């Protein structure tokens, strides 16, 4: 019973860590119930608190189930299932008394630890899950061996885990990556700086997240600014710019542009189906399609990091009537001042190009300011308010510009995505963060197609280079928005270095481990052998694992490299090892007889075998009587009985 408490508290610890880790994804109230249950488990283990009676336990279970459904709801299935698992294991832990029950809890905990990967896959989380495994294997050891101490068990668990790592690597590299048998319902938890509806006049839209959005491997000839297009917003309802329903129509035929650049993206988890690209492009991944607007659209997204490559394509530059109507449509009777401004500029301009220039000059000459903390323009005529207020961020400018273009009868739309990014130390890759989210305008020029118009560029030209975090003018506002973190501390050299280092590490992890998919594996196998066949892979896996086991065996043998001429001695050593596993160590100066007598007290059911062994061993080693073959057999059987025959 002594060890049961330890095992139970270790199991509770695992559940506590996982619940705390998934705090963001599960409801606060639910986590609170789990915390309470865990406190109860600990109290049961270390104080005189008693386990709930059957009635109380059942009531508790019903109450917990109700909280579960009420707080998490059934819309987010993955969260619900994970929460169910956590809570069920916790409840079981509360009433478990038999070793068999506790064992099943420990085994379920392996599954619970893995559930963390459904939500996070970064390197620190991987280490955390490994340490959870360590705790769980320790618990398993403690459960199967009552005499064991926690320290002893954890050392053994660590060894076991360390031993499994090489095999894991082999399997990771060579085992065929099968497609998933079933697909997880997508999670909607990932924080994204983009939204399918751009409404800059509602301040809360501005992202405060300093999370990474994606990383890009850019060809060196590709220069800033980097406008990462993700979504095209064509429908304006007076407040927000929305994506047209037909926007995810698949482009039927695409021609890859010759000499076009290919760019590789390592994308973080995202619930958004629209993916960033630098131009009209086509991706190499099967579940990423190109839409009519030349954007990338992910079908069946899952909540994992992913990577893709995209290549520039030729897009036929024609505006259908439908599109023209959609891109010039405005709600009536609002923003009259802006419409008159548009008409005023139109009167001055004799071409669309000139109109664009006039609008740009209008922004730069009239004291417009780029700020992350603009006043709230919540009037019906928000755009008029902004034009007189003159303070805003990208969304304001994009929205206003598009409105003015449309008011002047020029087809225009708002495009959102990311702008810029931060290069890694060796310029190897570009990191784009959620706070780099940006919106700009695209204007239709009859002979040139859709042309980018970014009013922000005229107001705050520095924004075009680098990341938002590197923009000095608005640093204070930026830091206030982001809150305390490594990013906001990046002015201090050592924190910046640390941030960049962690960033680099995470990149390597993403690129080499998470990005190791079917394609990467095929490439590796191609490099290793000329033609890839299942048989060859199987042989490689088996031989590598075999090699590893042999090395391990050799190491073990080398460890006990004191050689004895007499093979009988090894039987005694085997017993000594066995006793060591039971926590009985042969002392210096302890004779075989004393030692075996002590051992027989520990395992009384093997006393007969032990005494027979002792008799034969003494006669052989001390009596100078070489054992006959039959006697050696008996000796061997004795040892095997002791070592492997379990008590029935």
């Amino acid at each position, binding site marked *: 019973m002594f060890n049961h408490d330890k095992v139970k508290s270790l199991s509770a610890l695992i559940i506590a860590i996982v619940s705390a880790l998934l705090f963001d994804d599960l409801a606060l109230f639910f986590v609170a119930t789990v915390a309470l249950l865990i406190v109860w488990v600990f109290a049961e283990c270390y104080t005189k608190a008693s386990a709930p009676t059957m009635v109380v336990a059942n009531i508790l279970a019903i109450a917990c189930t109700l909280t579960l459904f009420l707080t998490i709801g059934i819309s987010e299935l993955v969260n619900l299932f994970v929460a169910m698992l956590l809570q069920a294991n916790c409840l079981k832990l509360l009433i478990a008394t038999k070793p068999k029950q506790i064992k099943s809890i420990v085994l379920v905990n392996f599954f619970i630890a893995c559930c963390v990967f459904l939500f996070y896959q970064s390197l620190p989380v991987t280490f955390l899950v490994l340490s959870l495994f360590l705790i769980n294997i320790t618990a398993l050891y403690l459960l199967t061996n009552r005499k064991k101490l926690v320290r002893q068990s954890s050392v053994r668990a660590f060894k076991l885990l360390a031993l499994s790592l090489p095999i894991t690597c082999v399997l990771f590299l060579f085992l065929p990556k099968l497609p998933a048998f079933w697909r997880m319902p997508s999670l909607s938890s990932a924080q994204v700086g983009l939204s399918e509806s751009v409404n800059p006049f509602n301040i809360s839209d501005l992202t405060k997240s300093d999370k990474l959005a994606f990383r890009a491997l850019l060809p060196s000839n590709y220069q800033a600014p980097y406008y990462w297009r993700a979504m095209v917003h064509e429908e304006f309802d007076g407040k927000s710019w929305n994506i047209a329903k037909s926007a995810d129509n698949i482009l039927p035929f695409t021609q890859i542009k010759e000499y076009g650049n290919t760019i590789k993206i390592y994308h973080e988890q995202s619930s958004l189906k629209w993916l960033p690209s630098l131009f009209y492009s086509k991706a190499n991944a099967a579940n990423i399609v190109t839409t009519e607007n030349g954007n990338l659209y992910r079908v069946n997204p899952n909540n994992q990091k992913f990577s893709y490559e995209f290549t520039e394509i030729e897009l036929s530059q024609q505006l259908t009537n439908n599109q023209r109507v959609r891109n010039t449509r405005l709600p009536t009777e609002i923003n009259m001042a802006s419409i008159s401004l548009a008409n005023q500029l139109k009167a001055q301009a004799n071409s669309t190009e000139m109109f664009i220039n006039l609008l740009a000059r209008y922004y730069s000459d009239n004291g417009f300011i780029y700020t992350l903390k603009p006043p709230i323009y919540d009037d019906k005529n928000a755009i008029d308010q902004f034009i007189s207020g003159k303070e805003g961020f990208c969304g304001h400018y994009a929205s206003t510009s598009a409105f003015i273009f449309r008011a002047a009868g020029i087809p225009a739309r708002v495009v959102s995505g990311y702008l810029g990014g931060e290069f890694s130390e060796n310029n190897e890759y570009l990191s784009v963060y959620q706070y780099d989210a940006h919106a700009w305008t695209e204007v239709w020029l009859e002979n040139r197609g859709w042309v980018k118009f970014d009013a922000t560029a005229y107001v705050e030209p520095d924004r075009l280079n680098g990341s938002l975090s590197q923009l000095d003018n608005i640093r204070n506002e930026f830091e206030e928005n982001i809150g305390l973190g490594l990013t906001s501390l990046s002015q201090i050299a050592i924190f910046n270095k640390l941030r960049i280092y962690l960033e680099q590490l995470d990149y390597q992890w993403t690129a080499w481990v998470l990005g190791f998919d079917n394609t990467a594996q095929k490439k590796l196998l191609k490099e290793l052998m000329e033609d890839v066949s299942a048989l060859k892979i199987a042989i490689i896996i088996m031989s590598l694992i075999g090699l590893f086991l042999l090395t391990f065996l050799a190491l073990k043998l080398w460890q006990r490299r004191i050689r004895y001429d007499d093979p009988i001695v090894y039987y*005694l050593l085997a017993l000594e090892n066995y006793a060591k596993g039971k926590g009985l160590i042969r002392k210096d*100066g302890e004779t*075989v007889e004393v030692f075996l007598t002590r051992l027989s007290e520990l395992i009384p059911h093997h006393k007969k075998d032990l005494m027979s062994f002792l008799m034969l061993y003494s006669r052989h080693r*001390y*009596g100078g009587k070489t054992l006959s073959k039959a006697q050696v057999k008996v000796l061997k059987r004795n040892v095997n009985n002791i070592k492997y025959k379990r008590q029935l």
Partner: protein
Amino acid sequence: MNQALDQIIQQLNSVILGKQQQIKLSLCCLLAKGHLLIEDLPGMGKTSLAHALSNILGLDYQRVQFTSDLLPSDITGSTIFDPNKQTFHFHPGPLFNQVVLADEINRAGPKTQSALLEAMEEQQVSIDGKSHALPTPFFVIATQNPMHQAGTFPLPESQLDRFLMRIGLGYPDKESEKAILLGEISAAAKKVSALLTPANLVEMQSLVNSVVLSNVVVEYILDLVTETRDSQDYPMALSPRASIAIANAAKAWAFIHSRDYVIPDDVQAIFPSVAEHRLGIASNTTNKLSHDLLSKVKINP
């Protein structure tokens, strides 16, 4: 043969109550052809043990009380002139017995002690240029009082080495002492009768000699001895004579336990009695040094 030994031990146990280990050790000492030093306070049953031992083995027994004025010739005997036959005639002293109890050996002067110890080693006595062989088996049980050392001549280390074993009897436990007081002993002591003849004993001694001492055990003994020579913890290291003594005693111990080979347990059982008085100068019967040594030296499988 072993049945006889078992009987002897049983009988002795009924005479000397609660001292099974010491009885076995003294018997073992006898079988290993060694001499025994009993170090204990007066009245602990030293004489009773010696007496019972000689009786049961059918041996002659003589007790010599050592005093400071005891002369060598008092124990060896001397040549006396026979006026009738007009010749010198050797008159053997108490040494010419199969079991000699030298009581309070440290009270006698060095000269007398030397005479005894020489006889013990050589198994003969030389008087006036003539050697007189001592009887076989020849077994000396010496006693000394570890306390009250004033006016005594403590045995030098070299002479302590001559004794195969040194044992302490110690106080009996309560049960045994109660039995003694109730007079169960005196009645039983009278019942002790010879179970062996001297010839049997000699045969046994030769059998002990043929007990197998395997390489492994020899190495263990050597490990023990070497440790005393290498380590700084021991005032004196064990001599080769000590290792021989250990081997012989272990053989006898194995023989007593009806085994024809020595196991490390035998070595450990006799080791404190054989080695302690050779390791330290101070007189003690706690056997701390040898117990430390035993727990320190690893026994190879």
